[in-house]
């Protein structure tokens, strides 16, 4: 257990040390979202309709961007080999890394989503549901993304392949989340969608670390 906490603290310390690198996904998010009004015109009615989808797709792209580096640094400097031979359960260590990734990428996305909602003229009553859906959805990005990152860690251009591997698996989250927000805008109850997202997040929270640990063992062999 102390290994879990020490690894989590170390990763957060590393993230703080290389702040610029950690903020890149956030800047990417802001830029991508601001492209849509420029591309589709500033019409408030149109923007309001597509707001949820745009924010969610941008969030998905932003967290995938940072996933490639999740294991690459540890793979290159030999830390992964230390994890494997340390005798600690690899899935627990992987969970620490996934939580560190979520804290550095997922959480900022959730915190900045109100700003994005204002940019895209999202109706006021849909904002709390958007934030809740992001809180439930971004962990799944990190969990499933970690499996993709573990499978492609040793490959030359693993980044593009990583996106192809995990996007199909993230479709349910995207559908449920945008469904929740659109339900909120028409102010019919969105709690069903959020509960389904919570269920999916818990399922991935239990299964993903094992799959990710197995992927790392394969990538290192």
């Amino acid at each position, binding site marked *: 257990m102390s290994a879990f906490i020490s690894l989590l603290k170390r990763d957060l310390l590393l993230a703080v040390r290389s702040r610029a690198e950690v903020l890149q996904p956030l800047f990417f998010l802001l830029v991508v979202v601001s492209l849509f009004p420029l591309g589709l015109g500033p019409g408030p009615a149109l923007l309001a309709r597509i707001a949820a989808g745009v924010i969610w797709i941008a969030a998905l792209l932003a967290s995938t961007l940072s996933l490639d580096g999740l294991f690459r640094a540890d793979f290159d400097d030999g830390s992964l080999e230390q994890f494997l031979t340390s005798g600690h359960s690899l899935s627990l260590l992987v969970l620490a890394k996934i939580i560190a990734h979520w804290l550095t990428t997922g959480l900022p996305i959730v915190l900045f989503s109100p700003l994005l909602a204002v940019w895209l003229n999202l109706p006021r009553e849909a904002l709390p549901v958007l934030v809740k859906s992001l809180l439930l959805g971004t962990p799944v990005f990190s969990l499933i993304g970690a499996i993709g990152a573990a499978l492609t860690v040793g490959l030359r251009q693993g980044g593009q*392949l990583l996106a192809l591997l995990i996007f199909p698996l993230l479709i349910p989250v995207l559908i449920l989340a945008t469904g929740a927000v659109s339900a909120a805008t028409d102010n019919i109850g969105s709690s069903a969608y959020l509960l389904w997202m919570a269920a999916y997040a818990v399922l991935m929270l239990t299964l993903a670390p094992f799959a990710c640990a197995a992927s790392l063992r394969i*990538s290192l062999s």
Partner: protein
Amino acid sequence: MNPVMKFIHKTGSPAYFYWLSGRMIPWLWAIFAVLTIWGMYQAFFVAPTDYQQGESYRIIYIHVPAAWMSMMIYILMAIFGAIGLIWRIRIAEIFAVSSAPIGAAFALIALITGSIWGKPTWGTYWVWDARLTSQLVLFFLYLGVMGLHSAIDEPRKAARAAALLALVGVVNLPIIHFSVDWWNTLHQGTTVKIGGGSKMPNSMLIPLLVMAIATKFYYGAALLTRARNRLLDQDRRRGWVAKKIKEDQL
């Protein structure tokens, strides 16, 4: 070793598998050919024209079997992959890797025939219908598995990685299927389901089942052919290959 383990071990030995599959493949092709000819004959000459869609509904006799096959092959690929990962049986890994292209081909066929069929029925080639969309996602899953397999050099490692991805995919498959269905009813309300909904008279249904069985034999034959090639390529330096060449049984 109990009999079951002995059987697995025996079929696991490459030479025995190579010989056995060599014997089976011609039969599988033969049965596939017979069933297809019979199925096609019934599909085009026996089945009545549909009162709504006229003749274009006959595309279901290739569209629906292909869609079923693409789903079944993905599940089988995940099972073969799991066996390969857990018990490290090389033949299972080879089966998983060889199934991917066949499954992707069926998914592609289902997509193409589905969209061609959409033109006369709905007026456009692509409709974001629930089943066509989840078929598209399944095709992307296949591309992911094949992409990962070709990206890794060492064959055994590539097979194990692809097998694991297939397992992760198969766990998510039902979830994707339901969420796409849900998404479809959310945005479009209930559209006409592709053919399946209305009660089909027997004369229409039989060719569908015949073709469904025929495509399974096709899968069996194509899979064994690919598996034999891959096994032979891997074991080219092994003793049993040299022996087979000497006895001219290759």
